[in-house]
């Protein structure tokens, strides 16, 4: 296996050896089969992706590509657009905060995910969660902490809770299922 950071396996056309000059446009093909085009923003591994409409604030879709996995490369041209200036400042605190927020969000999302449940189950869970407080309990959906919906999450799999709550969950479940079927999931 190539040592990490090996230079590009093969270079087709244009440019040069190991390093990619900033600003060059390449069409890259990867070992995974991905193909894309991008402008080299930074040293050899960094490829921004063209084509997507840049949002305000200079956001781009970037890719960091391991050069060792590039199977094909063709030089398309060059742009003069300066991506990075000399004095690039990074606000680490901001980044940390950003990361913290993202992590928290991800954790919250993780809570919603059932472990080892089918996607259908998950979508039912999500649908229920729109109007009812639900949580996972193993592979059961626990609604309002008292009504339990077991696999396969049909109307007759609803147990527990008061009559009113039970009926309510049943009804919501039915309708959600219907809706999911109607529109596909």
């Amino acid at each position: 296996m190539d040592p990490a950071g090996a230079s590009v396996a093969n270079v087709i056309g244009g440019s040069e050896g190991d390093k990619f000059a900033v600003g060059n446009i390449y069409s890259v093909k990867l070992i995974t089969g991905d193909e894309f085009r991008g402008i080299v923003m930074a040293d050899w591994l960094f490829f921004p992706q063209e084509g997507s409409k840049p949002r305000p604030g200079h956001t781009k879709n970037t890719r960091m590509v391991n050069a060792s996995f590039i199977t094909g490369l063709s030089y398309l041209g060059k742009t003069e657009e300066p991506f990075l200036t000399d004095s690039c400042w990074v606000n680490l605190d901001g980044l940390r905060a950003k990361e913290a927020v993202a992590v928290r969000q991800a954790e919250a999302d993780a809570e919603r995910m059932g472990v080892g449940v089918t996607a259908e189950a998950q979508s039912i869970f999500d649908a229920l969660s729109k109007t009812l407080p639900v949580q996972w309990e193993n592979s059961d959906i626990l609604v309002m902490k008292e009504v339990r919906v077991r696999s396969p999450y049909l109307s007759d799999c609803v147990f527990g809770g008061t009559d009113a709550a039970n009926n309510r969950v049943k009804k919501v479940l039915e309708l959600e299922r219907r809706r999911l079927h109607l529109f596909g999931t």
Partner: protein
Amino acid sequence: MSLLAPDLYSILRDPSFLRVIGVDVVIQMVDLGLNSFEAGMNMQPGLPSKASTNGSPYIRGGEREGVLNKAKSIKSHPANAASNGEAGSLKGDSRDGLVYLTTCKIGHLVEVHLKNGSVYSGIFHAADVEKDFGIILKMASLIKEGGLRGHKARSEFVRKPPSKTFIIPADELVQVIAKDLSISSDGMSNAVQSEKSGELLTDSSISKSFHTDQGRELKPWIPDGDVPQGLDNVFDDPWKRGRGWDQFKVNESLFGVKSTFDEEIYTTKLDRGIRTREMEERAQRIAREIEGENTRDLHVAEERGFQLNEKFDIDEESKYSAVLPADAFDDSGFDEENDELLDTCNDETFGGSSTSTVQKPVSSSGKGYGELRDASQPSRNNTNVDQMCSISDDHAQHLPSEQRSKDFTAPGSSISESQMGERRNKNNPEFSHSNRSAEESVSGHGDSKEGAKLGGGGTSAWKTVAEKERQVSEVSGKPKSESFTGQSASRRSSESRPGPSTSSRPGLSPSSSIGSLSSSEKSTLNPNAKEFKLNPNAKSFKPTAAARPQSPMADASFYYPAAPAPVQQMPGMPLGYGIQPQYPGQQQMIYYPGHQHPQAFYPPNAQPQFPQQQQQMMMGRQPRPQMVYMPPPPYQPDNPYNQGRE
């Protein structure tokens, strides 16, 4: 400074850990190179540890396990990203850009493609910039399972919990995709932006559920067969298309409901008499002119169908809901009209002794004012105009209740008057609230009442007209304004209390206005009445004492309609009020019976009358030979004669 929380750090350093996970953790935190902070775990063999906390034994062993598909869940601390501190000091390093970009990705949701085709999505946490760019993801979850299974749709997966920390050695790493990465040079903006976007949550984003359907594809409704046809355009333009849709008819046919709707209860009955056609045409023409005018007001322009200037990029918000800045003049359309009117009026007035002089002002004051035309005959111009001038000025100035319009029944155009009154009502009410405080016309006509009479007529046009008149009168001197106002006054048919206010201009007198009125074709004034000529030498009138002082006033047509007909057309107008049958032929002694406070005839803030008139016309202030009849001012509630009006 430790880059990792001690726990993780030590864990990762711990050989036992390594054995457990069975891999070499090859990660080296992003090392920004020069400075004080350490690079975290220094795994590089032989590389002096930059970790300030310790000489970390490098963990990386010789072997590297290629595959690292799953990481044990390690309780992760919100460890600081590898790159601490400002990166600004980096210079001259060819890796700078790379490092910078990598740093930017911290906290960003990225997609990582592995060699085996698996795709992971997680939060970028750290990367080994020094070495080979292995990365650490947090909360990474498998999106696509590579390898043997091939490409599976996401929904078919049995979900697995995301890994809290996911380490990817560089060998596995094919690419890291960060979408919408903010890479502006200013690091501050990066963080700030993300914070900002976090605060400004739109409703849709709040209520959006990440995992459920975002909605269904909307399709336009296509009517099935049994929908009645021909309903598409029913409501488009009911007026023009001759009432394609008559709700009453439909109601009656469908439900047998008989309607008692009578349009005339709610609006003025249009008098479709002999001259209707001309009037209508005139009105149409005027309407067209108005509609064709340019306007600065966006809404008006839109209604009129003017194309908005494309380059202005006005979005819906600013078009329909934004608040205009305070300095924008209220009736923005004004100024345009103002100038136009001025010019047109002037032209009309003086360009030719055309009969239809006052077209423009009339029209501007509202459609359907067709009545008024050639209010002022050329012959009458001078005196009439003068009077009219003041009148209209005042009219324009103060347009209190529209009832006033009914006050004086100018004989002439009783129709016009009533119509005008109503039309005035229909038109901008703003006028009625215009300045009542007799800010006497610029020209000094103190006849605020006249303004009052204008009543509801208050369209911007009127005001414009008034302004124009004022300007005109100021600028060009009497004749112009006179004629102009004369016309307008006649239009207004009366109202203007010729009285003192008109005294400002010599020759201005009610009778003259009356005369002009009478000269109007439409006017029902006594055509035979002579023109009123103000006699400067006349003594002032003393209401109580003088009955009919011998005044050298020439016989003139009264400003106030003489006895004949028109009177009855003015509802609420007490007969004795202004119409004293004995007037014609007599002195122009129109005095307001029971007028106790001559002062009251003038608006409280009345500007001083024209000097010459002041002495003579001021009622009660000085003896006056002639007394002009003045309708009770609107602000004289105690006036018994007012009651009918108010």
